[in-house]
């Protein structure tokens, strides 16, 4: 009795090993390939890696790295993807949890893209294991959505949710020693340079006109909506649909890059005219010259303000006020 059961057990074990052995080999093959980062795959390798009996997870990113395809996101994300692969392979993880990270470039794997009917890149697919302790019933790959920031952290938290719970390796961004050293060097250099050149630099730094100019430019930039451009990444100009260019965005909550520059320039002209009237004109010695200057500056002020109001009327249709010329 005991003999039979032992025989049976060993037999079943052998058959199981036979079935799993091919999967194991595949795993070991790719595992050895991916010492440092994700494995670079081609169509055949992809097929082999994602073949049905597998006792490992396969996370494959399908991308198009060549400049020809103009996939900005692919190139942007590639170092992040390598970072994930590297962190995983180097990190401490449960013994029986196997994950292979792979990269399939469009140039090498057109067939795969056609087979999966993919129109866009990058796409990240996670193939769960079909055998072994973490086997899933649904062997279909899970697809990761590239929304939000293109950072390894975000994808890695997603991956962690897909993988079984346990002690998973942390994402490990390598310390950029080069950068630290160069920063320190540059800093030291700057300090030294400053100390040496201080007799020449100090008068510039202590120059009131310079600081006045800096403050005014900063204020003009901020009050003309530059921060909005920076945060919302608005276009500089857009077409108006008829082949022309529309300089002013429609709507009160919207603006274009060029538009804010026009507005900043308008403010600058208005401010300068005010400064001229308030500070320069009363200091003029010449009687007729002063009269002329007053007329010119007051005229500039009036005209530009009228222009500003007319621009504002474009933005806010219901605005009831206006000044003559525009």
């Amino acid at each position: 009795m005991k003999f039979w059961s032992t025989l049976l057990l060993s037999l079943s074990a052998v058959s199981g090993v036979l079935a799993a052995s091919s999967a194991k080999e595949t795993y070991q093959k790719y595992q050895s390939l991916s010492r440092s980062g994700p494995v670079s795959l081609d169509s055949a390798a992809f097929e082999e890696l994602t073949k049905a009996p597998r006792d490992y997870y396969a996370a494959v990113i399908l991308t198009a790295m060549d400049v020809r395809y103009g996939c900005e996101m692919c190139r942007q994300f590639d170092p992040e993807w390598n970072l994930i692969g590297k962190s995983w392979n180097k990190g401490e993880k449960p013994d029986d949890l196997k994950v292979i990270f792979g990269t399939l470039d469009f140039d090498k794997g057109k067939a795969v893209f056609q087979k999966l009917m993919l129109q866009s890149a990058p796409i990240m697919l996670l193939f769960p294991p079909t055998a072994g302790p973490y086997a899933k019933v649904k062997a279909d790959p899970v697809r990761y959505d590239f929304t939000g920031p293109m950072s390894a952290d975000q994808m890695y938290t997603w991956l962690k949710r897909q993988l079984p719970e346990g002690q998973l390796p942390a994402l490990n961004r390598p310390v950029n020693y080069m950068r630290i050293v160069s920063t320190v060097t540059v800093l030291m250099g700057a300090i030294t340079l400053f100390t040496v050149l201080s007799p020449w630099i100090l008068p510039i730094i202590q120059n009131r006109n310079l600081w006045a100019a800096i403050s005014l430019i900063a204020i003009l930039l901020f009050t003309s909506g530059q921060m909005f451009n920076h945060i919302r990444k608005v276009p500089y100009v857009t077409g108006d649909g008829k082949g022309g260019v529309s300089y002013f965005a429609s709507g009160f909550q919207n603006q274009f890059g060029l538009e804010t520059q026009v507005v900043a320039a308008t403010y600058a002209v208005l401010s300068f005219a005010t400064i001229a009237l308030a500070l320069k004109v009363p200091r003029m010695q010449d009687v007729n010259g002063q009269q002329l200057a007053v007329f010119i500056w007051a005229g500039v002020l009036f005209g530009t303000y009228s222009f500003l109001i007319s621009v504002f009327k474009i933005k806010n249709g219901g605005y009831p006020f206006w000044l003559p010329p525009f």
Partner: protein
Amino acid sequence: MAQSSPLDIVLKGSSGQSTRGLLRIIILLTIAAAAVASRLFSVIRFESIIHEFDPWFNFRATKYLVQNGFYSFWDWFDDRTWHPLGRVTGGTLYPGLMVTSGVVYHILRFLTIPVDIRNVCVLLAPGFSGLTALAMYLLTCEMSTSPSAGLLAAAFMGIAPGYISRSVAGSYDNEAIAIFLLVFTFYLWIKAVKNGSIMWGALTALFYGYMVSAWGGYVFITNLIPLHVFVLLCMGRYSCRVYISYTTWYALGTLGSMQIPFVGFLPIRNSDHMSALGVFGLIQLVAFAEFVRGFLPGKQFQKLLTAMVLLTFGLGFGGLVLLSVSGIIAPWSGRFYSLWDTGYAKIHIPIIASVSEHQPTAWPAFFFDLNFLIWLFPAGVFMCFQKLKDEHVFVIIYAVLASYFAGVMVRLMLTLTPIVCVAAALALSSILDSFLTMGRPDPEALAKAGAEDSKTLRSTSKPVIGIYSFFSKLTVSASVTVYLLLFVSHCTWVTSNAYSSPSVVLASRLPDGSQHIIDDYREAYYWLRQNTPDNAKIMSWWDYGYQIGGMADRPTLVDNNTWNNTHIATVGKAMSSREEVSYPILRQHDVDYVLVVFGGLLGYSGDDLNKFLWMVRIAEGIWPDEVKERDFFTSRGEYRVDDEATPTMRNSLMYKMSYYNYQSLFPAGQAVDRVRGSRVPAESPQLNTLEEAFTSENWIIRIFKVKDLDNFGRDHSNAVSFDKGLKRKRAAKKKGPRVLRTE
């Protein structure tokens, strides 16, 4: 030149001075009256009512304070919000506003003026705006010797829309008193720096403490004053005045601010406050160095001393950074941090990014809120560089910093407005002063006077002469008058059109021009108050929490005090999931009624379906596997509500509640959503676990009752289809979940 006229008696000499003083007081009072009056549009058009969202909580808290006294207000635990958690309200609010109106109320009562607490609350903001105008006058007078600058600044501040937007009657929010406190604290600070007196420094600290009790924006003062001192030190302008005023302010002000339970130990533990502490340390070092310098004659020693000060400061700074990295000092609070790293909030704190007043400011908003002050502002800042005394440095720093903040966040336009008024008044007064004098300058006499001090801007190196021709005076003063008149009408127009609607009550115009009031919010809230049990729990998106608490007096799950992100995400999940998922959530949280805002019938764009994506995003932040933003967009990436809406969208509770029975208003197949401008599916969504309880006149508010468990133990979809008389679908075969066989 000196022609005598009958007016000379009142304009010259000592009687002239008192006449001017009297005129000044009259003008200031008129400005204050104008400031109050221009904020009363909403009371006159609608009624004396509290506006918007947050003010409803402040109002409710004030009522509690007036009824139960100060001590129980301090210990108030509110179990009617954040059900089932509750909120330690006394320890999590800024009590300054409520206490102020409580004091006003009791004083009026003491004077036997029978006044309702609601009217005190409604009119508090306009009243304080009058005070702000006065404080503005004082502040600007410190900046300029010109007699007109202060009055101009007060007038600008009184009616500038940037400030009116937060202080119309009924807008009973912290900012209502905080801006007055801000301006007044700055005035006292300038006074302290100028005089170097402990008294002014202590007064600054006192009003700073009041400010801390009133508004979270006190951090602005906490950082601006140290920055001012720091810049003064860097400019080599250390003086005993600065030392005395700063140390007095810091020591007393920090102690004062720690008395507010909500602030507590933040001033010594939070990065937001560390600059104040750092500058405090630095100024001690500098003072010590200055002291020692007196005894050290050698130049080498002085160099050594400077190096030592720099080194100690560097070490201290490094230590601070280390402490905050290691977590002993709390890192920057999210709201404050998102001002510097502008992309931060969108990724990490969607709840901050979701609020519309935290969006960046487009340029029209600046012009809308400040009109011609916006271009006088840089000119005024430039004029501060002329003399560049300590107080002018303050104006420049404030101007640059506040314009950056206002550019990043719409809401901070409020802190920009005061300094814009100061700078614009400086610029305009300097024009008016030279162009509005009757006398004609004598070039010969003036030319001899010679240049003023040499250390000034290039444009002002020559001596002031004056304006010769009467005609140029006329031109400039006439055009300035035009601008001023335009400014006044602009402010009035903006106030009346943009900032005076209570947003609880909506107004529209009928074709014949008459006003039509849409009062759905209050209709619905009073329905809740009249028809539901006193402790019925209402679930809604957090925007409406304070209003439900204030007007309907019912417990809510979440409200505008967004302290618990998970709880808000729970509500978001319930709204964005299928009924089968939502119902257990609703049951677990004892929800009796669900309230949604739907603007489709009226074209009211601020409704819940437009805010829906934020609910999804916030829920996704907590349950990324169960709620996915992607599922609410069609394959082409559009947010649709019509026939092409995704199944997730159409099965979400929010969608179902919004469009439930909506189709019955229209002829078959022609139901239209006027907000999103699309045709709604012909068939009404089916609700199994909720039933419609109330829909307001214009369908803006819809209230649904959560059904109890079925009496026969069926699930709700079966019960509903049974009630409809549908034949029960027979399940072909009882299938258990598929399980992987493992041996």
